[in-house]
Structures are given as C-alpha cells and as structure tokens.
C-alpha cells in the first residue's frame, strides 16, 4: 500500500507542468487576490496602483479556469493512472512525477491552450478505451457555486476511471510502448504523419524504462546526436535481467534508417544468433520499410563528448546519411560493434577539442584506423574556431561548420 503522502492537485502544479497557462503566474495572481481581498475588507478603502490590473488578472484567470476545467480533469485522470505505474512509495511524489511525465511527454509547456486540451483529451479517451465521460460539466451560472459540483464530478470521474480502466500488466505496457515506437519509426522513415504519444510510453517513462526514456515520443525536433545516441543505446548489449532496460534490436535498425543508413541487406547477419522474438521484430520492421533499399553511403561523425558543435545539427537529409558518436564508443571496453557501418561510410568528420592540436588528433585517428577501430576513409578535422596549425599531408581542416553539409562540402 502506498503511503498517504501529500498528493495534492493544485493550481501551482498545473501551471508548473503546463496544463494551464496563464499570462499571470499563479504566485502573482495569489498576491493580487490578497490585495483585492484587503481592499474589500478595508473600512477605509485605499486605492493602490495595481488595483485595476489585479482586477483584470483575476477576471482573466477565472475565465481561464472556466475554459480549462476539462483540461484539468483530463490531466488529473491521466496522472492518477500514471501513478499506478510509479515505483516510489510516496503518493505525493508519484503524483508530481506523473504530472511531470505528462508534461514532458506531451511537451505541454510548448503548446497552446487548445493543443494542450486536445492532447490530454486523446490520452484521457485512451484511458477510458473510448468510453470517456462527457465534457462540459459547467453549462453556465455563477462560477463559485459550480466549483463544488465540479470538484465532486472530478472525484467521481477519477473513481470511475480507476474502476473502468484497470492497471495493465507491465509486460503488456512495455510491449505496447515498443509497438508504438515501431509505428513511430516507420512513420518517420516513410514520411508519414507522426504517431502521437501513447499512454504506454508515459507509463514506461513513469517507470524510467527504456521504452519511455530512449527518446522523447515527439520526435520531430530530434537532432542528429539524439538519434545517434538512441542508436548507440539500442546496440549496446547490457548484461541485465531488467526487462525494462532492454531495447529490441529492431529499434537501432529503425533509427539507422532514420539517419539514412539502410541496414536491411545485413538483416540475415544481424538476426543470426539472436532470440526468435528479436529476429521476428527485425524482420517485421524490415518488411514495413520502403520496398526499395538504399545503398547510399554516409558520414561517420566522431564528436567530442561535451559541448560538441554538432549538438545543433539537424537529423541528416536522405542524400547524405550520417551518424555521430563520441570517439570513446570506437575504443575501449565498452565499444560497440560498428561492423555494419564500415562498408557504408564514405568519409569521417572528426571533431577536435580546443585543447588538442590538429596533428595530435590526426595521429589519434590514424592509430585507431590502424587498429581497425575506425574505418579507413577520407578524414576531415573539425574545430569550433579556425586554427593556423600545420596539418599532416592529405588532412583537411574545417572550422565551425554550421551543419553536416557545410562540414563535408
């Protein structure tokens, strides 16, 4: 049984996580309410500067609350559902975490009022399996008198949700989340509309499982490095018994496809020696990708670990596939197997840290190539600022390229 922590739904929490968005922050509005209450209670009424502004803000806020009653209801119900998948013992902490997950997953703080409402409604309906209670709990009349009724209705809705929408088995949640991910990747590969964020993704995120954390479910803004990192996470085989931490093998293959590399010619090699479930997953994904495979060769970007200039680079466009990774992922004990890429690399962009001389970087790359840790291909050294240093013969240096195309032009 979960401890009775302070699981509180309040306007500050709703504002913090973007469920309601007022032009006046709740803290300011609270101060305005206090001033207006003082004015009302004063025997000798004393005007103050912000009197009219306070009045307008309170009226606007009340209007906002009227407009967002349903939004709040959806958020509250979804959050309560998510708390069922929480791992902490504190009810208040779990509820706050659930609100955070909703906000981050649906990117509520970056959305307008209508879109927020629409996203939460979709999740709410998903929760009730299409049998969600009707909206418009406040048809009209004095606002204060209706609030009690609305609160009662909200409590009833939450109770109803708990009764009708039973807690799912976590394996099914995980399975549903990965299935949604495959749909999402396929949609991206095929330039189809984005697959919306699903409840299972949020439930997994609530549990901090791979399906909920490997990437944000809203993928449109993701950049080269974020996709590349997802690939790396996908191919890193971690020795663990935690099923929630495992990433299916089809996932990095899908990510590689999104980065422009078509690995389907290697499917037989990839699936050899893996469990049947993994193999079927790969085959299923391969079947859903465009019929014609691409043999396009791309770039391998070897970036610095922190503060890389590639952090702002967009996801590569089709004609020039690319994947980025820190140098360390090619060397050392934790290195991953890049063998499927070597034949697909046309050139290598190596980012050089400000503290390293170009000649030393060239020497480091050459050494890794000689050990077979990096492919043997043309290399360009990238720096954040231009440098006047002697370069080894045949080595090209490019300073502060704005994007991938500029770096390999």
């Amino acid at each position, binding site marked *: 049984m979960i401890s009775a922590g302070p699981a*509180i739904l309040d306007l500050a929490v709703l504002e913090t996580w973007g469920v309601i968005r007022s032009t006046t922050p709740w803290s300011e509005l609270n101060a305005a309410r206090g001033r*207006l209450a003082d*004015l009302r209670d004063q025997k*000798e*009424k004393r005007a103050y500067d912000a009197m009219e502004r306070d009045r307008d803000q309170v009226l606007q806020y009340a209007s906002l609350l009227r407009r967002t009653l349903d939004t709040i209801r959806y958020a509250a119900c979804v959050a309560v559902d998510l708390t069922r998948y929480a791992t902490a013992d504190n*009810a208040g902490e779990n509820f706050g975490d659930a609100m955070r997950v909703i906000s981050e997953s649906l990117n509520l703080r970056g959305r307008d009022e209508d879109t927020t409402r629409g996203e939460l409604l979709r999740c709410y309906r998903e929760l009730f399996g299409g049998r969600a209670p009707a909206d418009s709990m406040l048809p009209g009349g004095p606002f204060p008198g209706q609030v009690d009724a609305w609160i009662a209705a909200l409590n009833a809705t939450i109770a109803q949700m708990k009764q009708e929408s039973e807690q799912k088995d976590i394996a099914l949640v995980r399975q549903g989340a990965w299935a949604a991910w495959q749909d999402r990747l396929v949609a991206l590969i095929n330039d189809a509309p984005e697959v919306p964020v699903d409840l299972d993704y949020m439930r997994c995120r609530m549990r901090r499982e791979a399906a909920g954390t490997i990437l944000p479910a809203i993928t449109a803004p993701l950049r080269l490095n974020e996709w590349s990192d997802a690939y790396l996470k996908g191919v890193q085989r971690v020795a663990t018994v935690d099923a929630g931490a495992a990433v299916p093998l089809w996932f990095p293959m899908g990510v590689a496809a999104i980065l422009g590399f078509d690995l389907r010619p290697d499917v037989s090699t990839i699936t050899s020696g893996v469990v049947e479930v993994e193999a079927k997953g790969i085959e299923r994904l391969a079947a859903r990708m465009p019929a014609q495979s691409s043999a396009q060769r791309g770039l391998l970007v070897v970036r610095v670990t922190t503060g890389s200039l590639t952090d702002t680079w967009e996801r590569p466009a089709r004609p020039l596939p690319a994947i980025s990774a820190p140098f360390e992922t090619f060397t050392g004990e934790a290195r991953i197997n890049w063998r499927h890429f070597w034949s697909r690399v046309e050139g290598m962009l190596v980012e050089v840290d400000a503290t390293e001389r170009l000649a030393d970087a060239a020497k480091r790359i050459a050494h890794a190539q000689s050990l077979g840790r990096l492919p043997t291909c043309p290399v360009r050294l990238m720096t954040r600022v231009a440098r006047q240093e002697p370069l080894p013969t045949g080595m090209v240096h490019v300073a502060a390229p704005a994007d991938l195309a500029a770096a390999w032009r």
Partner: protein
Amino acid sequence: MAVQFFRHSAYGFEGRDPHYAPVPKLPDDGTRPLLARPLMLESLAYELRRYRAMQVNGRNCLVAGPRGSGKTTIVLTAHEEVDGESKAHRCRLIRVRLHGPSLLKDPAGFERGEDGIQEHVLKTVLINLYQTLCEELAFEYRNYCKTRLDPARREDALEMAAELRLTLDGAPDASAIRSFWEAIGAMPGGVLFPDCQADQGAAEIVALATASDAYRSCTGSYTRATTDEDSAATATELAGKVEAKGSELRDLITSAALTTGAAASAQYAGLPAPIVALAGASTALLSLSTLSYTSSRKRAKSANEKVTFLPDLSVSSLVHRAPLILRRLRQAGIAPVFIVDELDKIPNLYDRLTSVVSHLKFITADQAFFCFLTDPAFLSQLAEANRERADVVQRTIFTNLLFLTYTPSQLREYLAEVIQIQDPRDDKERRELEMDAEALGYVLVNRARVLPFELVRAVAELRDDMGWLRVGARVPRQELAYQFHLMIQLAIEVVLSARFIVERIERDLNFAHMLGDALYYPNSQWYAGEQRFDCSAKGILSAIAASTGYEVRLSERDRDLLHERVTTMLDLVESPANLKREVKLAVAEGRMQVSQEVWEAVPEQPALVVKHDDDTYEWMYNRYGVPHKSASILDIVDNLELQNALEGIDAFVTGLATVSVSSDPDSVVQAIAPVLEALDKLASVQI
C-alpha cells in the same frame, strides 16, 4: 460642539445643538478684519511715527506679500493706528490711494521715454494728492462748522461747508479758499488744528492753493496772466460780498452765472439738485476773489506798481513744484501717505517700478511717505539683483523692504482668540472641546495656506446659514479630511521648526517666502486634485513659478535646501508614526507647542501620500478624505463578476486540494464516498 466665536456678538451660542458653533461675520463696511498682527505691521507703524514726528522727511517702503495676505489691510491699519494715536503732533497723516496699474501703465507716457513716464507719474500723484487733500480739508471744515460755531451761524456755515467741497472740485485759487476760511472765522487757527497755532489757517490755505494750482496744471491746459492793479479793485468789491452774512451770500450766489463745470462734480458727489446748481454758480463767483484782498499794505502797493506775473504752470514744471507742494503740506501739518496698490497686476513690473522710483526718489523717499504694494516676485527679483551686484541702483531706491508674512502660530493665535469653549458639561468635555478647537486651528491654517484672506474663506466654508460652525464634536480629530489637514500642517511646522531654518527665515525674507511656497506646493497640488506630483527640485520650482506667475530665483544651494525640506515634510506625511515622533520631540525641545491629544489624532492608516521611485509623490486621498480612484474602488468592491471570480478561484483552490489523486484503492473509496453522495444531489451536473 460648544466652540463659540465671540468677537461678533450677533452670533451667540444657540445652545440647541452642542455640536455647532457660531462663526464670525465679516464686517459690513467691506473692510477686511485684521486677523493677526504680523511683525511687518510694527515696522510700518514705527516708520509712520517717525514720519509724522518729522524725524524723517519721507520713506519709500516696498511692501511685498502674496495675494490674499492682506497687504492693503496692514498698511491701512498701520496708518489708522498711528494717525489715531495722538493729536498732539499737529500733524495729520492723510492716505492717498494710487491705483498702481494707472500710475505705471501709460503707453503714451512710456513712449515718450523717461520724461514722459516721470510726467505721467507726477501728474497722477498730484491729482490724487489734491483730491484727497480736498476731501480731508472739506471734512475738517465741516467738523469745524459743526463743533466750533454757535448754533445761530451753524446752518449757514454747514451750507458753506458743502459749498466749499464743491468749489474745491474746480481747483479754486487762494483768494477763493481764503474767503471760505474767513467766512467761518477759521482764518487764524485753521480747521485742522484750531487750538494749536495762530497761523494754521493761512498755512492750510497756502497748501491747498498750491496743490490746486498743480492740479489745474495736471488736469487741463491752463495759463494765467494777472495784473494786480485790476484784480485788486475787483477783489475789493467781491470781498465785501464774501464777507456778507450767509443769507446775503445765498442771494449773491443765486444771481451769479450758472455756467461752470462744478455742477457736474457736485452731482457726482451725490448732492441734491439745488445744491448742484448752487455749486456751479459759486465756483464762478468766488474764483474771482484774491488772498490779498484784506491786506491794506498789499493793496497800497498794488496801487503804485503795475506788476505782471506769468507763473509757469506747465506740466514740466511739476518736477520743481511737487517738492514745494509737499513741503507746504507739511507746514500745514498735513503728511501724505501714498499707497500704491495693485502693482502685481502690471507685467514687467520690476523694470517699470525701479525706473520710476529711482527717477522720482527725490519725492517718493525724501518728501513723502510712499508704500508700494507688490507680490513677492518683486522682492525676489530685487534680492536676485542685490545678490548679483553690490552697486545696483535698485539697492537703495527703497528705504524699507517689508515682507508681509504670517507664521502659522500667528493665525492660530487669532483663531484661539475667537474660538472659545462654552457651557461644557464637565472638565472632561471642556478638555475634549479645547483639543478639538486646537486641532481645528491647524486644519484651518493648512486650508488657508497661512494666508489671512484664505483663512476667512476657510472659516466661511464651515459656516452654515445660521452662522454656526458645521463641525461636530471630535470631528477635527476623528474625520479623515480634518486629520489629513492636521497631519500636513504638523509636518510643515515640524520642518519649519528646525533651528537652522528658523534662523534662516528670520534673516532672509525672500527665502522665507520661497520656503513657504515650496512647503505648501504639495498642498496646492492636493487642492487642485492632482494625484501625482513632481517633487524634484526642478519640479517644485517650476510649479511655484506656474502658480505665482514668476520665475523663482534661488542659488543652487538654496534650491537643494528647499527640495530637502519639502521631501522631508512629505516623508513625514507618508510615515505618520515618524511624524508623531518628530512632533513629540519638537514639543519636548520647545520648538513647537501642540497638545498631545492633537498630535496623537494623526492617523497612521490609511496612508495619505505615497512616494514613488522617480522623485514623485502621489496623494491617495483627496482633500475631502475620499480616496482617489474611488470610482475604481467602487467598480472593484461592487463588481459582482469580480466577486464571483474571486470566490470561484477560492473555491477552486480549496476544492482541488480535496481531489483524490492517489492511486491507493482504499483512499479512493474513502474519498469518493462523500462525492458519490453529493453527486446524487447534483442532478443538474452532467458527468
């Protein structure tokens, strides 16, 4: 409230309503009462005494004071006090009122340059002097007839007195004047001081005739050629007729020609028609007589010699004749006091007045007593000129610089004198009413901004139709409108009570005036309904300039001092607790005298004024104790939509906290039990 104004007995204590007090009625004769006795009055009276005693030949006084401060009243009061003190000086101070704008605003004269100005001013001075002199002497002549002559002659003599008044309008010559004096037997002792000197009568006639000559020169184009021989014969005949008894005189006058302009003057003086007709005739007749008629010695001389005298009666000769006239007046015991009023209505006064006074100083300062009444701007400009240069002519043109200023305590002393407690039930009530009256004094002085004229108005504002004061008991100490005035006035007086300010005010009248204007500047803004006002040094000076119509001239150090004092005063108003502490300290140190019950009546809430970051202050309440933005306040307090919104948000906040957001099944069941029960009752709420 049993506060009674006892000075005017017409407003006695009615006793019906103990909360009302009578208010003094203004005098019916149109004069202003002297509300308080400023130091300047003593200075002016002192100079007038010296002048009357002929310790000085003349004085040139600049009397400066704000509009409504009672400059004219003070000068008239000083004159009345000194003139009425003693008859032993054989000197009569006569007031000659000169309208400043008429004296200095003569475009034609100014176009002619300095000579033109001088001529115009001299003419105006002499015309007014003659007219005033005529009034005074005619009045005393009539008094003489009433008090000195036996009843048998009195009736005819009084007619003679009327006749004299009308004749004087025609500016008669000496012989005509003499005939009047002789007719009532005032020739040896005169009419002004009949018991004093034997030659007073002749001195009066000489003075009057000299002034009359000047008057004729000033008011018309007039030349005269006199042949003594011819005139002597004519005069002999006429003098016999003049010496006739009153009844014969009446016949004589009736037979004379009725063609002179004196009739019009008499009509103007409001006399009955028969007297008006008489006036025209007598003027024509008596102007033919001469002063030398009864002198056998002169008559013999004129018989032997043919003398042709052509006196220079041109206006230009007034420069020389004016001192002579003034000397002859003094010889006759007549000391004119010229009061030049309304000067603050003249644009560019400083240049005009200093020019005129410096040119005519030989008269204005050396031969007569002149009072020039101006607003403080003139004094300010004079101080500025003196500061800039030590050798400016303006430095010496005025023998006395008198600044009419009242201290708040002077006006309160007056109020304390006219407000008294009547019929209190017991000592406790007496004390309470005394405190009310004291507080009311501060309130009224603040409303009046230390101007007597405004004080009268402030009192009048509190007066009802029955003449009682509309101030309830405790109201001066308990109602916001009164308390705010009390608070501001106390703050002003705390600021003024600082030792260094007291010393500075005593020795620098100009600064004192500026400081007064500056300290009451926020008050003016308050009364003008301005909520927010600029209290930077520049803002204060600009506002004073705008309200007074002249640019404030102060050194940079004084500007800063002014600014500091004003903001200190306002800060005290903003922080009433500090104000109370400062008042208490000032009382303890003897810098102020105010009862504890009065300063404790200062309210600490609500704040009257609020300081903003940009050196501006904002009045939160108007002078009636009503909050500014009261309409907005009502709009907020009575706004049903806003009340709904506030209550709705309150209910929302409270309600949300009760929502069961825990996934614990037990807590859910527990939470929804009352909810489900409530839902049964909420059939209208659709879920």
